[in-house]
């Protein structure tokens, strides 16, 4: 059957309403059900791994999640909304441990030579499925700035800064500030006058892009090889921006635009705020948020932390560093928990919560930051993806990380053909579904 287009629904019901959601039809096959679900999939990445010997968590006798003590304050309130996944490993190779951690995280593919990856990342696969129905097929969010590589790996520094990839060596361009994210989400601004000007801008952009397209098409035949590839990327970009012009129809009450200059912690909060609005209004089906760059040496402004994140990740089992390392992980976990709570306390247009109709993942590309292992990656899932996941459980997966992405893709409506070819193994994570 045809997927009932989200846009069709929205147009039918008028603008300025939250996203309508069809009843999840649990009796159907996964793929069929996903066809009808407006999906929300988001991955929240924190760098430099975790204090793994304490992160792994056991199930309580009743099967519930027994949180690691140091994460109790951060995650206690949402404990029963989580699925705690132990034993996911990323065995991909690449240049530099930190570089490989982020670049291959959502790909299940190795880095190659000087470039990071050849495979499109999981969020972009999801975006591809839904792109005709959203003006923003995906949101790729990150902390502000750019982390520079060190020594050996400067030429692949792009790997430290991206988890989302278009394929080839091209990363998905990131939105690096809440200010810019606001402009992406609400291109038409807040007032009727701004709306009118936005309409004019759209009209003239069409002419401008027509002009660029005509030029590219004239120049293209004389180009060969790499030049042709680069020009094609340009043409593809023109078409995408044109397509987005045509699909920008959803209007959602815009909040205040965030300021340009924000502290790292405020930046993080505002990103979560706007992502919440984007999900509530159905502006995008999928998002990644690289809360900080891999290999980050940032000194977070949180109590009892007074040195670099990367430095304390090399804790050498010394308590003063471990103490700070735990606090930093708890910071990121608590931001995730706040978002989960908000999604849970907001009703979607069916009578379920937004959280019920989402799949949210918190994780890092390194397991133990001290040793750079990637065998027990910290991974926490929240949301039931339309009632298809039962929360409040611990899963001992003991398989490759890409199994989680493959199951994510099926839940979000990516075709079996694409999903079967994804990643570095042929195994899903069916334990997630129950």
């Amino acid at each position, binding site marked *: 059957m045809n997927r009932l287009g989200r846009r069709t629904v929205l147009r039918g019901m008028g603008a300025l309403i939250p996203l309508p959601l069809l009843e999840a039809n649990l009796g159907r096959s996964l793929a069929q059900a996903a066809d009808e679900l407006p999906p929300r999939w988001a991955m929240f990445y924190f760098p430099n791994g975790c204090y793994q010997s304490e992160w792994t968590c056991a199930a309580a006798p009743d099967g519930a999640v027994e949180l690691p003590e140091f994460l109790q304050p951060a995650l206690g309130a949402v404990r029963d909304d989580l699925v705690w996944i132990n034993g996911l490993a990323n065995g991909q*190779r690449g240049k530099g*441990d930190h570089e490989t951690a982020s670049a291959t995280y959502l790909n299940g593919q190795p880095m190659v*030579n*000087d*470039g990071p990856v*050849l495979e499109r990342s999981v969020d972009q696969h999801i975006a591809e499925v839904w792109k005709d129905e959203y003006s923003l097929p995906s949101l790729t969010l990150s902390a502000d700035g*750019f982390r*520079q590589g*060190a*020594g050996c790996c*400067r*030429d692949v*520094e*792009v790997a430290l800064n991206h988890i989302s990839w*278009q*394929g*080839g*060596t091209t*990363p998905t*361009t*990131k939105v690096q500030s809440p200010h810019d994210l606001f402009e992406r989400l609400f291109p038409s601004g807040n007032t009727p006058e701004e709306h*009118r000007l936005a309409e*004019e*801008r759209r*009209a*003239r952009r*069409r*002419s*401008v*892009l*027509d*002009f*660029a397209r*005509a030029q*590219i098409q004239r120049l293209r035949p004389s180009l060969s*090889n*790499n*030049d042709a*590839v*680069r*020009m*094609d*990327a*340009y043409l*593809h*970009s*023109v078409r*995408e*921006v044109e397509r*987005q012009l045509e699909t920008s129809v959803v209007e959602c009450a815009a909040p205040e635009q965030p300021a340009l200059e924000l502290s790292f912690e405020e930046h993080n909060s505002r990103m979560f705020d706007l992502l919440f609005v984007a999900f509530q209004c159905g502006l995008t089906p999928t998002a990644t948020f690289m809360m900080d760059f891999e290999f980050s*040496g*940032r000194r977070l402004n949180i109590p009892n932390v*007074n*040195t*670099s994140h990367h*430095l304390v990740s*090399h804790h*050498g089992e010394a308590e003063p560093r471990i103490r700070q390392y735990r606090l930093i992980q708890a910071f990121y976990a608590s931001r995730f928990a706040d978002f989960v709570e908000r999604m849970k306390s907001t009703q979607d247009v069916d009578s379920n919560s937004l959280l019920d109709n989402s799949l949210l993942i918190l994780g890092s590309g390194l397991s133990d930051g*001290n040793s*750079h292992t990637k065998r027990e990656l910290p991974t926490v899932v929240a949301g039931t993806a339309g009632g298809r996941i039962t929360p409040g459980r611990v899963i001992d997966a003991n398989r490759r990380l890409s199994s989680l992405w493959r199951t994510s893709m099926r839940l979000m409506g990516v075709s079996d053909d694409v999903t079967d070819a994804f990643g570095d193994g042929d195994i899903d994570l069916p334990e997630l579904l129950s």
Partner: protein
Amino acid sequence: MFLNPRVLVTFGIGLAWGCSSENGSVGAPAPAAGAPIPVTPNQISPSTSSEPGVLPPAATQAPLPVSSAEAPTGATEAACLPGRTGLQRLTARQYQNTLNELLGPGVPEIRLPRDPLKGGFENNASALGMTPDILDRYVSAAEEAVDATIGADPAWLGCTPATTECLNSAVLDFAERAYRRPLTQDDSDELLSLVSSLQATPTAQGMAPTPHQVMGWASVGIVTSPKVLFVALDRGTVNETVDGQSERFDAYGVASRLSYFLWSAPPDETLLERAADSSLLAPGGLAAEAQRLLSDPRAEHFIETFAVQWLDLTALDQQAFDDAVVTGLSSTFLEEMTQEAIGIVRQAVRSDQPISNLLLSQTTRGSEALAEHYGGLSRGEEIQLPTDQRRGILTQAGVLASTSAPDHTSIASRGMWVMENLLCMTPPPPPPEAVDAALAPVPDGAEPLSQRQRFQVHRDSDACRGCHLIMDELGFGLENYDPVGRFRTTEPNGVAIDASGQLPDGTVFSGAVDLAEKIANQPGQPFERCVTENLARYSVGRLLTPGDECFLEHLLSRSGGQQATFAQLVSTLVQSDLFLTQQWSTQVESTEQGEL
């Protein structure tokens, strides 16, 4: 990176490729002072030793290279085949400058995504991708710039009444400047049809747009055209001199490459005139223009970009030091360190001193606070360094700070910095999941060890020794400077510092001042070569191929060895076919396949 495996081999240092015990590499014990760092044959990777024309060196005797293995001694440049840059998107910085030059002083500062560094620099064509989001940001930037300039100036069109003829001719004039070359018939046709289509687009008020409005909108189209967004889209004719295998940029293409190299900005009117009357490519033409461009204030863009990226200081502002380390320093000290590096390179560009003066200079540039930091004398912008403690770029605080951890110095990072940025040697990454035992926290109550003692673990480990023998030795030489570059003679734990070490060829040094002099005096001038290599990489916007290296040999010999000044080096470079031509056709690089 250039000379990556080969130079290491000619240096007589086979690095354990992968640096891992898994590949069976077995390092030698620590060498005695004065002996070249030894290497066992199986430390040289098969791919390196089997490379055509490059023989594995005699393990302990190879001197520093005077010229690379395939340098055709006595032959001409014509025997060298250049690599290929291909379409090179304007960087964020270049695009901002382009809008500034085309639209004038009203252009606001535009926030575009920072471009990734590859090969150390932001202008590497293969890393400058185009994605829908980047295009969207560039179009938005153009709209913002045009609104703030043409949109804000009702007299921009310059004719009353503003007829369509007047509009058309203004659009064509603007496009010709923007495209950086004369318009073709196709260009004109496309532009006029853009004007017609915009004239038929109603405004927000539902009115027909005025010619002035159309001018603004057409300008957005022009400055987002591929002819503007790529540095030298029209490359000119095929050069038949090397079997039709390379192509020569025409005068306009050269003009654009030259100005984006030395200004990060488009050619000015003078440069375009030199391209139009072909005097740019006549004898002496390029040297004169290179000189003129370097003397122009716009060369600051080059000086800043090259200084910060070559010296690897782009992440300096992200360094977060522990409070105890930065006590007494102003809140702007990191910025001052960056400015010092820029000042040093500016001085080199403007001076008639040889390149080696970058290493040997007894003065630096910076504020009184910086002079105090160094224990030097402040004289205006110049600082007289205490010559027994500091010399040249090696001991500048920015370098020492950017290679340090928040609470301690990092010998390996500093050694690596010297290898990569002064000698152009690139060691491979550490083996996966290597735990650096030298960095482990010191247990309470343990006997205080010197960093040198702690780093002994690198020599004791088969997996680490191959690379760390070289980088640690160089790093020891910089131990007299704390994490923010203050001179010191003891470590924080009270242990006296021994800052002696040896260069890869076994030359012994004691302390950083001696290290700087020894590097400057190395046979084969590895430092000058390395500066040349970096300049070349930046000027052409690509990683250098073996064919490109062939050109470098000629560049170095033509520059007159160690006596070349920075400006002479630039001048020789832009007159070389390394800069003026590129490979005509090439396979799609594997890393770019599937870019869509």
